[in-house]
């Protein structure tokens, strides 16, 4: 008797849990769809012609793109820091500070070219453009 009652209660709880999960997954799905739409509207319409044609080539191109963006930021930061050190004679502080800032700029470049952050202010004004 008690067994069956506990069974029933378990079942009831199980059902409730299931409906809760179903509702949650439905909400998650809706949220995902919404996010997908938002991302689609943010992202450039097509990621270059190669992206659709050959996944290997586009992955290779993408890897090259992102790594060169990061390296460029760091290198430019280090270069400017080194120049400032030479001009002002404050070695090594310029190099340290600008290397870190350059790293931040490189990360910003990468995130921008991956389309994860909105671009500079101008990127929100014109037609479709984002760094690629």
């Amino acid at each position, binding site marked *: 008797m008690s067994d069956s009652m506990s069974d029933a209660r378990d079942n009831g709880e199980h059902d409730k849990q299931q409906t809760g999960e179903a509702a949650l997954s439905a909400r998650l799905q809706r949220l995902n769809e919404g996010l997908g739409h938002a991302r689609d509207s943010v992202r450039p*319409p097509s990621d*270059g*012609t*190669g992206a659709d*044609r*050959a996944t*290997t*080539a586009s992955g*290779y*191109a993408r890897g*090259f*793109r992102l790594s*060169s*963006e990061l*390296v*460029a*930021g760091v*290198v*430019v*930061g280090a270069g*400017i820091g080194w120049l400032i050190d030479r001009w002002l004679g404050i070695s090594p502080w310029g190099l340290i500070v*600008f290397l870190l*800032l*350059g790293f*931040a*700029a*490189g990360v*910003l*470049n990468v995130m*921008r070219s991956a389309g994860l952050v909105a671009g*500079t*202010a*101008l990127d929100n*004004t*014109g*037609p*479709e*453009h*984002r*760094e*690629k």
Partner: protein
Amino acid sequence: MQVDPIHQFQIKNLIPMVSMGGHQIDFTNSALFMFIIVGVVSALLIGATAPRAVVPGRLQSIAEISYEFVANTVRSSAGNEGMRFFPFVFTLFMFVLFANLIGLIPYSFTVTSQLIVTATLALLVFFIVVGYGFWRNGLHFLNLFVPKGVPKLILPAIVVIEVLSFLSRPVSHSVRLFANMLAGHITLQVFAGFIIMLGGAGILGIFGATLPFIMVVMLTALELLVAFLQAYVFAILTCIYLNDAIHPGH
């Protein structure tokens, strides 16, 4: 037989010319191939558009397709105002595309595998962006470095980071094209070297050499795609940077 994969990038003096300000200015194989590229592009476009047929022939449709392609790229990333830079972008695109394509021909020289060439092109774009940006927008051009809605406390750091990000553009712009072409050509050469080395190792080696041979065929196809893709990427990045000069932040 030993194959040196770097040998193909050597600059050779073809015709010694003048020495200017302590620098030797020579006509090198790199310069020769630049002339060839410009000649081929000009001959193709002038020859193709000479008939001015309403219904384009084969050559004319190549010219029309390339025009349409670059024009669409410029319009979609720099807007209609960007079309005043169309001749510039089209020239850049055709030059880089033909440099990449002609470089794929065996025994030819790849101009875009030299960092100095791509850096010159990227710096040209950079200075046009800066010059036109200031000429058109005056000091409003500097709004480019001041994002909206940033707390005043961290604004100086953000501005410095934005400036660095802007200055790093010619670096990534040039290195991307250069590194792609360099890496692709070295890979091709290395695999081609395997064919020669295996081919010299008797009957079994000749059978073994078919594997790198298949690889080289596939890599050549990939390089053809990369040649086009990198020219396109170079052009579209130029458009995006020019767009910054036309519409800096409000």
